[in-house]
C-alpha cells in the first residue's frame, strides 16, 4: 500500500478557475477520505464538470493546491494519472471497436500481460453484464450499456480514485440502480469515488459526504442527514391560474423558487399550521388567488433549493 490510510484521497484548497471573464470555480476546498463516496451536487453550470476536469488533470486550475492520491496535481500529473480513473459525462468508448476490444485496448495501455488483460476484460464484461454484447461494436450499444462499458474501461487499470461525472444522467431507472450497485461494490473494495450529480436522490443513496456547489462556490458540505437538518421544514407548493397571479405572489413572498411551466411557487416552510396561516394571510391581504396548495416534507431537494436559491447563500453558509 503506497498511501497511509489517514491521508485523504483528494485534498484541494482554494481551487479557482475562470474561462475568460466567467468565474467557474471561486475558491473551492475539498477533502475526500479514502474509501468513501464524495458527491458534488449542483445544477448545470455550477462548476461540477470543471472540478472533475481539474482533478483528473484534463485542465489546469488558475489557483489552488490539489493533492490526488497523495500526489501534487501540478507537479506530478503523471503520478496522479497512474492512480485515477475517469468516467466523464461524455461517453469515452471507441465506437468502432467491440466491447471486448475496448477493454483490451485499456489493458494494453496499462501494460498488462496479454493473458492478464484477457482475464480482466472477461471478468469485467461478466461483472457489468456485457458478456454477450462484448463481441459487438460499441456503436450498437444502448445508453446504459455504453455507460457500463465506459466504467468497465475505467476499472481495467484498477484505479484507487475514480471520478464519475454524472454517471447516470440519461439512464433509465433500472440502469441507474444497476450503476448505483456497481458503485457500492467498488467502494466496498476500498476505492474512493468522486461523484458529481444533479440528482439529489443519487447523492442521498450513495454519498458518505455531499458538497453542494453553486456558481463555483461550495454552499454546504456534510452527510445527507446533516444537510437535511439544516432545513427546519419542507416547503409549500402554490399553484396559480395565470402568470399574473404567479408574479404577484412572487413579489409578496420574495424568497421562493418558481416553476413557470407549472405556474407554481415553492415557498420554504416548516409545514406548521401557524406558518401556513401566515402564508395564506399574506396572500389574502393582496387578494392573490391560489389554485392549489400542497405541503411537502423536507428532502434533499429542499436543501438544494434553499442552499442555491437567490440571495439566500450567505445566510445559509453562515448558519
Amino acid at each position, binding site marked *: *500500500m*503506497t498511501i497511509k490510510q489517514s491521508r485523504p484521497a483528494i485534498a484541494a484548497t482554494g481551487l479557482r478557475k475562470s*474561462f475568460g471573464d466567467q468565474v467557474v470555480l471561486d475558491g473551492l476546498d475539498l477533502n475526500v477520505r479514502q474509501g468513501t463516496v464524495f458527491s458534488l451536487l449542483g445544477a448545470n453550470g455550477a462548476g461540477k464538470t470543471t472540478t472533475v*476536469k481539474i482533478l*483528473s*488533470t*484534463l*485542465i*489546469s486550475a488558475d489557483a489552488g493546491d490539489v493533492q490526488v*492520491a497523495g500526489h501534487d496535481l501540478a507537479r506530478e500529473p*503523471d*503520478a496522479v*494519472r*497512474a*492512480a*485515477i*480513473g*475517469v468516467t*466523464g459525462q*461524455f*461517453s*469515452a*468508448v*471507441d*465506437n*468502432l*471497436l467491440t466491447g471486448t*476490444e475496448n477493454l483490451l*485496448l485499456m489493458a*494494453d*495501455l*496499462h*501494460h498488462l500481460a496479454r493473458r492478464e488483460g484477457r482475464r480482466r476484460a472477461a471478468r469485467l464484461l461478466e461483472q457489468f453484464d456485457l458478456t454477450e454484447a462484448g463481441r459487438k*461494436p460499441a456503436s450498437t450499444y444502448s445508453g446504459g450499456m455504453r455507460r457500463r462499458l465506459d466504467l468497465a*474501461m*475505467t476499472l481495467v*487499470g*484498477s484505479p*484507487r480514485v475514480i471520478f464519475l461525472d454524472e454517471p447516470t444522467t440519461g439512464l433509465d431507472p433500472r440502469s441507474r440502480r444497476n450503476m448505483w450497485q456497481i458503485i457500492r461494490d467498488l467502494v466496498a*473494495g*476500498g*476505492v474512493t469515488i468522486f461523484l458529481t450529480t444533479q440528482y439529489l436522490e443519487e447523492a442521498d443513496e450513495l454519498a458518505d459526504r455531499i458538497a453542494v456547489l453553486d456558481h463555483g462556490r461550495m454552499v454546504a458540505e456534510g452527510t445527507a442527514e446533516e444537510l437535511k437538518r439544516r432545513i427546519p421544514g419542507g416547503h409549500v407548493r402554490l399553484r396559480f391560474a395565470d402568470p399574473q397571479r404567479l408574479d404577484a405572489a412572487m413579489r409578496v413572498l420574495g424568497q421562493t423558487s418558481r416553476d413557470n411551466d407549472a405556474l407554481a411557487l415553492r415557498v420554504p416552510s416548516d409545514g406548521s399550521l401557524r406558518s401556513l396561516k401566515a402564508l395564506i394571510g399574506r396572500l389574502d391581504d393582496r387578494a392573490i388567488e391560489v389554485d392549489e396548495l400542497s405541503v411537502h416534507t423536507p428532502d434533499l431537494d429542499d436543501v438544494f433549493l434553499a442552499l442555491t436559491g437567490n440571495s439566500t447563500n450567505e445566510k445559509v453558509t453562515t448558519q
Partner: protein
Amino acid sequence: MSTHAFTGPAPAGPRFHPLRDSATMLRRNLKHMLRYPSMTVMLVGMPIVFLLLFVYVFGGTLGAGLGGPMHSGAAHGRAEYANYVAPAIILMTVTATVQGTAISIAMDMTEGIIARFRTMHIARVSVLTGHVLGSVIQAVFSLAIVIGVALLVGFRPVAGLGAWLATAGFLVTVTFALVWLSVALGQVSKSVETASNLPMPLVLLPFLGSGFVPTDSMPAGLRWFAEYQPFTPIIETLRGLLMDKPIGNNAWIALAWCALIALGGYLWSKKLFNREYSR
C-alpha cells in the same frame, strides 16, 4: 483491503512506454480502417478516378501537347501522357490518404475517448504516432493499388529494382511528412467536415505544379509558383526515378521540403495536442 484496488504505480514513479503505447494505438487505428472500409475505398478511389479521367478523357490531347518525338495520333499521346501523369496520381494517392488522416484525427477529437487517453498514464504522443503509422501503412496499400491500376491503363515505368526501392522509400518519406502536417490540420479542425476540407490544398497542389502539364506552359506568375512549390520537386523526383530521367537537385529539394514539413507538422501537432483541453 482488497488487492485489486491497490495495484497502483511502482514506488519508483511511473515510467512511460512510448513504443509500446504507439504500437497499441497503431493496432487501434488499423482496426478502425478494417471496420470502416468505406473511407479507405473512397481515398483509393479518388486518385483512380483522376487517373482514368486524365488518361482516357484528356490524355490524347494533353499527350500530344507534351511535344514528344513523334506525333502519331491520340493513342500515342495517351500512352505518353499516362507516363507523364502517373507520378502526379501517385502523389495524389498520398495526399488523399493524409486527408483521411485529418478526418480520422478530427473524428477522434470529437469523441470522448481522447479525453480518456488524456487522463491515463500513457505516452501522450502515442495517440498521434498511432495515427501517423496507421496512415503510412494505409498509404502503402493505396499506392500499391493505384500503381497497379496505372500499369493496367498504360503506365510503363522503366525503373529497375534499385529505382523502385528508392521510389518506395521516397514515397514513405513524403507520406510521413504530409501525415504529420495532416495530424495538425485534423486537430485544428473544429469538426469532421472542416477536417475533410482543410487538407484540400494538398490535393490541388499537384495541379499547380508539374504534375499534369509542364510548368513552362504556364503564365509567368503561376509558373513561378509552380516551380517553387514543394510538390513540383517531389513529382520531378518520382518522375526521374520511375522514368529514368535526370533528377538533378530535385531529390534534395524534395527531401528538404519533407524534413521541413515533417518537423513543422510534428511540432504543431504536439503543441495542439498538449494545449488545454476544453469541451
